[in-house]
């Protein structure tokens, strides 16, 4: 399998804070890789190191085999980046921003016009080409940023929290776009703190917490690690405890043993469970027997 991104032992500190700590990851050619983690986990710091924007304190990154320190120009040719915060030049119009990007990517002067004309209908930007970037709303800025990042047909598209702050409709549209970009062979590396996004959009997911990559795999593999089914037992006081089971019969069997005054539900496990289980943040999940006593009052399988 071809690794188009390989990062080894990346570390970056801000003062005494280890924002990213000994992070090693590989992204395969053609996949959508989701980098999932809560706010402050180190996603942006990682993406900035992968994309040559910031140098790591230690470790190395290779993009399509090119070391980002030594061959940064070759590495940069292959990547497109959409940053978490918009980085358009606010004093320029949409058209000027796009042309500036095309020029900075060393697209031959003669080709710039046709490239721009080819890509803008995709984002329905025709009407807004002469609007100043600062006058656009967030959603439109995102569209311009997408056009700018794709104009040189990069092999890898990096997106830092692309759907944060978007409404459901725009988010669905963006997912569709990401899938279609990916179908043309572009590898996508995106960060997110939405569980659902990682599960439904990404081929493989890496979960990052406090600067460390804690687990990596397809969403299904990650769920299988803790158990495909979650048994949630809620006692009369509203206290929840969760246990994980490899299949439905096992979960049902465990449910039988739960105390009678508890509300019981069985549902497929998700990446949130994986995160909670592996980090111990928020609630501590027990994989052994639930705490309360008696026999179950309700079982619902979602």
């Amino acid at each position, binding site marked *: 399998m071809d690794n188009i991104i390989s990062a080894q032992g990346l570390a970056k500190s801000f003062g005494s804070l280890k924002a990213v700590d000994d992070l090693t990851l590989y992204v395969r050619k053609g996949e959508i890789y989701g980098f999932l983690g809560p706010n402050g986990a180190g996603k942006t710091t990682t993406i900035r190191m992968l994309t040559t924007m910031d*140098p790591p304190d230690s470790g190395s990154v290779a993009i399509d085999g090119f070391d980002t320190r030594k061959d940064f120009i070759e590495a940069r040719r292959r990547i497109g980046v959409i940053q978490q915060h918009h*980085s358009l030049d606010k004093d320029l119009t949409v058209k000027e921003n796009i042309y500036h990007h095309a020029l900075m*990517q060393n697209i031959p002067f003669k080709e710039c016009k046709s490239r721009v004309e080819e890509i803008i209908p995709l984002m329905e930007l025709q009407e807004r080409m002469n609007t100043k970037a600062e006058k656009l709303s967030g959603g439109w800025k995102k569209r311009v940023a997408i056009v700018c990042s794709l104009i040189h047909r990069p092999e890898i598209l990096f997106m830092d929290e692309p759907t944060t702050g978007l409404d459901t409709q725009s988010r669905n549209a963006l997912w569709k776009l990401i899938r279609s970009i990916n179908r043309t062979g572009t590898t996508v590396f995106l960060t997110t703190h939405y569980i659902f996004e990682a599960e439904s959009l990404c081929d493989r997911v890496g979960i990052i917490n406090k600067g460390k990559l804690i687990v990596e795999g397809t969403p299904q593999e990650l769920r299988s690690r803790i158990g495909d089914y979650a048994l949630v037992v809620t006692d009369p006081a509203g206290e929840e405890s969760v246990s994980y089971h490899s299949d439905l019969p096992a979960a049902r069997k465990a449910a039988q043993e739960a105390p009678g005054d508890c509300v019981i539900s069985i549902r497929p496990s998700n990446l949130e469970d994986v995160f909670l289980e592996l980090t111990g943040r928020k609630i501590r999940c027990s994989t052994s027997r639930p705490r309360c006593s008696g026999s179950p009052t309700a079982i619902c399988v979602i």
Partner: protein
Amino acid sequence: MFNFPSEVFRVSYGDLCYMKHNLVQTLVSTLVGPLLYLLAFGYGMKAGDTEYIAYVIPGIVAISSMNSGFSSSSQKIVIQRLFHSSFDELVLCPMHTSSVIFGKCMLGIIRGLAGGIIILGLGMILTPDLFVDYRFILALLMSSVMFSLLGVSAGLLANSTPTLSLFNSIIILPMSFMCGTLFDVSSLPEIVSYIVWALPLSHTTSVLRDAASGSAVDPVSVIMIIVYAAIFYAICYIVIRKKLY
């Protein structure tokens, strides 16, 4: 070998568009300062003294090229770095670092050249003792490039707009007055004259004045300008490559 002029143009395209949008403002802000100097020192102080006007105009041209070169490059970079985060885009483009540096200098160089030529043009109407030849244009170009490089390094290093203003008030402003631009510094105490001699504006003023009056240009000053430009370039290069901004 890569195509350096093409890359410089590609990097500066955004700034050139910006200048196009703000042509009138850019021109007015480039010229107001030097015109006031001309009015105050050329007319107010020594009305009718064409010899002094011939002396002071190259000094004003030097100040103007320093201010234009320095302020356009530094302000634009500080804003792009700190407020628009669009400087990251520049860092992300597959360009050579030298192209990025000179691309960011372009606005300052153009403003410095345009301002300098307009002021000298006015001066030539006022006194017959000034003239323009290739040496003057070359000197003006060197001065604008050198101060634009200073502007780029200051823009890369400043962590806030007040820091940049501070740099402006403690380095740029004193230089404007102290470097033999408006009066002969030989009357100052000896120790001061050493400091003045070490400042870059003294040398651009000397070269511009010699060129405009048709006398021989001091090679030491030319070398000093080149050395300063090389130092400022090196600062930009190191800061960008090591991502120290």
